[in-house]
């Protein structure tokens, strides 16, 4: 009988979770479990509600990425109405999605993870936070805050509200974009592009000092999944599902998101409330795949916007085939921020964007609808069934973080085996195990941010119940 180490709660992630490390008799880590300790009942309590309330209701799942839920839900409702949205609305929805990508990635990279890069994994948790970043490297800290602000401001300008906007509706969006608002948004773009580029330059220099982490942070072969558009770019709002393998080969392509049940299975484990999606043809758990920024950059052959394209080429040259280390999620996130800013600019410059018609109406034409988009953390699927009165009878949601569940579990095992020594626990060891999870930027639920302030209590107990070591992180 070995010992058990528990890291509870994990800090600087969205939501609540803990990690258990099982040690064998030799004191080596034999198993690692990532427990999501919260239960969300959305699929159940939307039953009986009208479909046209869904976008408004479902976005409440999350305070970080409400826009992704809003869009996936609105798209599922579009499918229930069997309709297309006006061209301007389609573009406005895309801008909203990309703006959210920027704010969410900025939050993950600068607020939650950059303290590790700047202070080091072993630094005192009291300083290892966004305030420490601003104090030590003001330009980087303020730049990160500005990027997040930009994303939030775009959302507010379009949708009237930064968090939980009700602007996207089945059939389009509520209000068209005025020329004045468009010009105001365009004026900010050069500044934020520069910030994103500076951050990339800094981070690429820093990579050298994280060789060990790059080698051991969920660095293994797996499939990658995400949406790809008809012109072979990463699709955030539209596209079809593609799977590639670690050699960069396309395993499956042009899969309809609406048929996700044909190729995605969902397994259940007793130790967590989060399901384990897997690629059905390979079975469970061999059908492990990753989604999110790293996957999206691995899936495509070009990035599509000039500045991000240069960065993408450099990124993909890190390895001969697909980039496998999950540490590089951070790197990919920065490239995606740049990509999103450039893309928003592209859409805003399209004259169609200020067209007045932003919504079509229709009544219920289908009793089942699926909506899919790429949330900041990966592919998000909303699937609804309604009765003839338009009341939801059944709903299934596959949240981006869920796709990564298998990879996160395997990732912490890999890192724990490398970093954790059972004879003496150190803060740095634990932080590295947590940092693996943080690299995936899991959004375990809602809007709660730990930001280095939550208490962490870790006890190392021998098989006879004797306390061998103890570490306490106080708020």
């Amino acid at each position, binding site marked *: 009988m070995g010992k058990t180490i528990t890291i509870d709660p994990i800090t600087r992630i969205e939501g609540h979770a803990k990690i258990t490390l099982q040690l064998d008799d030799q004191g080596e880590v034999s198993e690692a479990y990532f427990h999501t300790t919260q239960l969300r009942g959305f699929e159940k309590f939307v039953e009986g509600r*009208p479909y046209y*309330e869904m*976008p408004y209701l479902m976005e409440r799942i999350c305070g970080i990425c409400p826009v992704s839920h809003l869009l996936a839900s609105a798209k599922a409702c579009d499918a229930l109405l069997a309709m297309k949205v006006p061209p301007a609305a389609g573009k406005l929805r895309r801008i909203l999605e990309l703006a959210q990508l920027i704010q969410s990635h900025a939050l993950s990279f600068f607020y939650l993870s950059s303290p590790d890069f700047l202070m080091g994994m072993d630094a005192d948790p009291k300083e290892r936070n966004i305030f420490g970043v601003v104090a030590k490297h003001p330009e980087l800290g303020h730049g990160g805050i500005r990027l997040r602000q930009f994303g939030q401001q775009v959302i507010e300008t379009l949708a009237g509200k930064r968090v*939980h906007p009700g*602007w996207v509706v089945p059939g389009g969006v*509520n209000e068209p974009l005025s020329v004045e608002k468009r010009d105001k948004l365009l004026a900010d773009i050069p500044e934020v592009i520069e910030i994103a580029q500076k951050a990339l330059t800094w981070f690429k220099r820093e990579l050298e000092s994280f060789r060990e982490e790059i080698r051991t942070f969920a660095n293994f072969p797996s499939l990658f999944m995400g949406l790809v558009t008809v012109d072979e770019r990463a699709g955030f709002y539209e596209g079809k599902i593609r799977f590639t393998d670690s050699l960069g080969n396309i395993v499956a392509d042009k899969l309809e998101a609406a048929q996700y049940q044909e190729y995605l299975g969902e397994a259940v484990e007793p130790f967590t409330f989060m399901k384990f999606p897997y690629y059905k043809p390979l079975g469970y758990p061999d059908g492990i795949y990753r989604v999110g920024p790293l996957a999206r950059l691995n899936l495509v052959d070009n990035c599509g916007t000039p500045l991000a394209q240069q960065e993408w080429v450099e990124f993909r040259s890190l390895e001969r085939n697909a980039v496998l280390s999950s540490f590089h999620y951070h790197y990919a996130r920065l490239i995606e921020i740049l990509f999103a800013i450039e893309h928003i600019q592209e859409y805003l410059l399209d004259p169609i964007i200020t067209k007045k018609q932003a919504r079509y109406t229709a009544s219920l034409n289908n009793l089942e609808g699926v909506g899919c988009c790429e949330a900041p953390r990966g592919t998000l699927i909303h699937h609804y069934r309604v009765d003839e*009165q*338009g009341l939801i009878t059944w709903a299934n949601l596959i949240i981006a973080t869920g796709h990564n569940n298998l990879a996160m579990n395997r990732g912490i095992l890999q890192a724990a085996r490398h970093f954790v020594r059972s004879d003496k626990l150190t803060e740095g060891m634990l932080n590295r195990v947590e940092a693996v999870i943080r690299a995936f930027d899991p959004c375990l639920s809602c809007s709660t941010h730990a930001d280095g302030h939550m208490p962490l209590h870790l006890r190392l107990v021998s098989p006879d119940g004797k306390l061998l070591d103890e570490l306490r992180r106080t708020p």
Partner: protein
Amino acid sequence: MNPAPSVKTLMIDGKDVSARADQSILDAARENAIPIPTLCHLDGLSEAGACRLCLVELKGTPRLQPACVTLVEEGMEVTTQSPRLEKYRRMVVELLFAERNHVCSVCVSNNMCELQDMAKQLGVTHVRFPYRYPRLPVDTTHERFTMDHNRCILCTRCVRVCTEIEGAHTWGVFGRGVDAHLITDLDIPWGTSDTCTSCGKCVQVCPTGALFEKSKVGMQSQKNPDFLNYLNEMREIER
């Protein structure tokens, strides 16, 4: 020529006021810019005395009286604000929240809701009563409108506007006490009602998200009951 209505003089919150004998305490107070909170009252409709928010104290009687359905009397001394009244008004609002499923954050009327505004105005920060969480239906059978019983506070504005202004009498109240709920015609789905003219007046007067236009979900559009005064005025002129 009609005889001039008799005039009564009374005191509201220490202020001497006069009012016609057929006026309620609520009318008299509002004419003199003395605020009394209400939810079921709406200018242009008859009074129902349903919400009990306008309860006031009358000197000489231990019982609280609803200002909307109590007529003024000579020499009355009315108190509209007191710790006792505040306590009961807050309790009324808390009970309304506890009775059904008012989930503001996902309600179509969030930030445009008279119940929500009233709670803010009265300083209701918590509901001290256990929520009932009843399982209530949503009627989406009407082509343009939705009836969500979860958000209904039984103010009966819809019933009154439908009967008194539109003349259709589609809406009614079925059952008693905690089982009371709105019905259309003889308790049939709204979409199958023969009497409903789809005029939408009930939706415009509804103070909460119980009645709403399907196409306006997420639009942040305020309901607009102002048409009532206009219609009543025009009818007066016609007569």
